[in-house]
């Protein structure tokens, strides 16, 4: 049997390996990125609307809460969310890159319009950025924009468009500098907060050390419970769709075949 297994192994290993086409690969990567951006946008948006609905239900009536919900859903897309502006900027950038790839770059107003759209949405995205993930996404966008604008200036024969592209690069570089500054400020604030918290904790520890000790025990117990829950999730999650049943079915059927 061992020899036979070896032969099968050898032969099956020689079967060709297939590769995903680059365009599909890009499509998948873009879909993952969109999922990340949309997921974050929804999480942020939903927490705001839940608060509004809760407030209205408590203070006024469920009817008013429903009105707020409808208005909220309708106006959600118009909100100044980071995800929205980032997506818009990427769309215009993709259109410009496609034009560059086709070699159809000129002083055409469409190209100038695309550059303006990119800059406008990038600026708004910069204003709406909140956390480290947003900053990272912006950083990637800025790099991609500078590369594309450089190429635009390189490919174009038109002076006006060259100038437009150069101005756009300057504008993005300014955005980059602002972003770096904002991140530094955030980091400083975080450090300050951390130091303050440390100071408070120390004084609390001195006041009632025993109580603190007890509560930390509670926390670690909670952590353990959570870990156990996660473990269960993991066991199920790979097979969260009906794989277990299916594989059991398969094995049952193969067993039946054998019995036959």
């Amino acid at each position: 049997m061992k020899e036979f297994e070896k032969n099968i192994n050898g032969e099956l290993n020689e079967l060709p390996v297939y590769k995903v086409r680059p365009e599909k690969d890009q499509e998948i990567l873009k879909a993952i990125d969109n999922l990340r951006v949309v997921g974050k946008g929804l999480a942020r948006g939903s927490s705001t609307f839940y608060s509004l609905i809760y407030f209205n239900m408590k203070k006024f009536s469920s009817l008013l809460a429903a009105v707020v919900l409808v208005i909220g859903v309708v106006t959600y897309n118009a909100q100044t969310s980071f995800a929205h502006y980032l997506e818009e900027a990427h769309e215009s950038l993709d259109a410009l890159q496609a034009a560059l790839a086709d070699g159809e770059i000129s002083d055409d107003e469409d190209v100038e319009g695309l550059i303006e759209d990119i800059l406008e949405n990038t600026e708004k995205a910069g204003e709406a950025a909140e956390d480290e993930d947003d900053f990272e996404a912006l950083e990637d966008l800025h790099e991609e924009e500078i590369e594309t604008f450089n190429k635009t200036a390189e490919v174009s024969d038109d002076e006006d468009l060259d100038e437009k592209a150069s101005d756009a690069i300057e504008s993005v570089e300014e955005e980059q500098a602002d972003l770096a500054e904002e991140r530094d400020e955030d980091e400083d604030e975080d450090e300050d907060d951390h130091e303050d918290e440390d100071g408070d904790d120390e004084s609390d520890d001195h006041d009632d050390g025993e109580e603190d000790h007890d509560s930390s025990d509670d926390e670690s117990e909670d952590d353990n419970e959570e870990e156990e829950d996660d473990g269960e999730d993991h066991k199920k999650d790979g097979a969260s769709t009906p794989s277990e049943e299916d594989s059991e079915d398969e094995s049952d059927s193969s067993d039946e075949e054998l019995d036959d």
Partner: protein
Amino acid sequence: MKKFGHKQFVAEYHKVKDKVFTYLMYRVSFNRDIAEDLLMEIILKAYENLPKYDPEKGSFKSWVFAIAHNELVNYWRGAKITQSLDEMEELGEKAYSRYMADEETSKNLENKKVWQILEFMSQGDKEIIMMRFMDDLNYDEISLIMGKEPGAIRTQLSRALDKFRDLYQKFYPSIP
């Protein structure tokens, strides 16, 4: 549980994408469009479920393969592939001719014997042999993907190999 972030996911995706794609190609009669659509669904599903993935409990590869296996089962169920024997034979012939027409594959004509025999086996037996020898998955990984104990996987594989050997000797009696 360790956090598995976006960047790590993309890095791991690049490592496994061709393996998962090859796994799908051999199971959807070498139809590239279907395999690519399934791959997209699998990767997006994996991304959506990322918070549930724990690297300490299994490799990313085996986790994605488990999702792929489930998606494939759903696809087979939807496509109602397991119908009459005639239809099965017709599908097998189509798959075989598509396989032989493929430029990459035609370079490996010698491999046709193994493939031809696999096409005659039941889906469950074919699946476990391919997972072990073609996709290079070990017993633990297959057990995670199929949701069975490693011992049961060993037994199932051993039975599948017996059947494979019988068919092989029937088709090619001259080869030991």
